[in-house]
């Protein structure tokens, strides 16, 4: 264990009250008023802050994902393509870029992103896919109608 502070190295062995409180006060050093000076108030606030910090570790990631999505949506709008078509087209063209890389490209290298959008659009056109559904391969194309529907119902006279 590395102790950068000599005082900690000397007195950190026992559960001494002063040093235990000092640890809390160190965490509350940037607070103002009684929140940094009175231990009973400090400890409540520090605990709450630590809980927030724990939760924020997840929220930060989610926030970044939201920001990337917003940027990609904005860039997609400039090139007249929807984000889901872009994603689908790039996946089909075997260009495996995640949202972070895509948004970085959209932000810093707009011409690269323009090309990616064009690739995705062209790939979707080749595949004959419009909005997630592949029009060249409609669902249920291999099914025979007789297998699905009752023969009697088919032969039944309709009005």
């Amino acid at each position, binding site marked *: 264990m590395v102790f950068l502070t000599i005082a900690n190295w000397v007195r950190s062995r026992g559960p001494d009250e002063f040093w235990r409180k000092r640890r809390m006060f160190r965490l509350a050093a940037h607070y103002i008023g009684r929140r940094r000076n009175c231990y009973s108030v400090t400890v409540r606030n520090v605990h709450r802050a630590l809980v927030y910090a724990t939760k924020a570790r997840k929220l930060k990631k989610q926030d970044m994902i939201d920001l990337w999505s917003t940027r990609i949506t904005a860039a997609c709008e400039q090139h007249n393509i929807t984000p889901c078509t872009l994603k689908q087209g790039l996946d089909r063209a075997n260009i495996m870029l995640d949202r972070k890389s895509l948004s970085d490209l*959209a932000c810093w290298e707009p011409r690269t992103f323009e090309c990616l959008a064009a690739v995705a659009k062209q790939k979707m056109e080749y595949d004959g896919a419009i909005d997630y559904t592949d029009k060249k391969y409609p669902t249920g194309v291999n099914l025979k109608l007789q297998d699905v529907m009752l023969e009697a119902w088919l032969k039944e006279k309709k009005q």
Partner: protein
Amino acid sequence: MSAAKRVQQWATFARTWHIFDCKWQDPYESANVIKKYLMGLHKPIYHPMNDCGDVVVCINSREIALRGDEWRKRAYFHHTGYPGGATWTLAWELHNKDPTMIIKKAVYRAMKGNLQRRHTMERLLIYPGETVPEDVLQNVTNQIRQTRLVPTRLDQIPEEVSKAYPKVMDYPEDYILK
């Protein structure tokens, strides 16, 4: 294209001025579109902390269209802060009072409530008619696409055009038009 030019972007942080014609538009639907330009959500450089929003000029706000009977049913709430100070103003009353207010409130409500919202709203300019001050109009470089088609009324079609339109049938001679 050379390697240096590939990433070159001109006027990325410039404020663009957009114009939006509110004629026959649903204010609550177009608020979402206007919001996007005001906050800069249409730019790939968007970040909530950077000031990349544009200016939007709304014209013809007097001629907005509300859905169904919302003119009579939608009420705008205001409270003066004193006891008994609550008022409910119907949409048509508010529109008669100030033709820019409905679109303004719609855009304000479309945005998330934070400290930036009131500053962002400063960049929204609304004019009830088609007359826009010259110093505003000279900055405008882009038009925002309307969300709905503006319908043409029969009395606005020239008579020659409506006469020349193919007819399905003639009214019987003894038919009385109301």
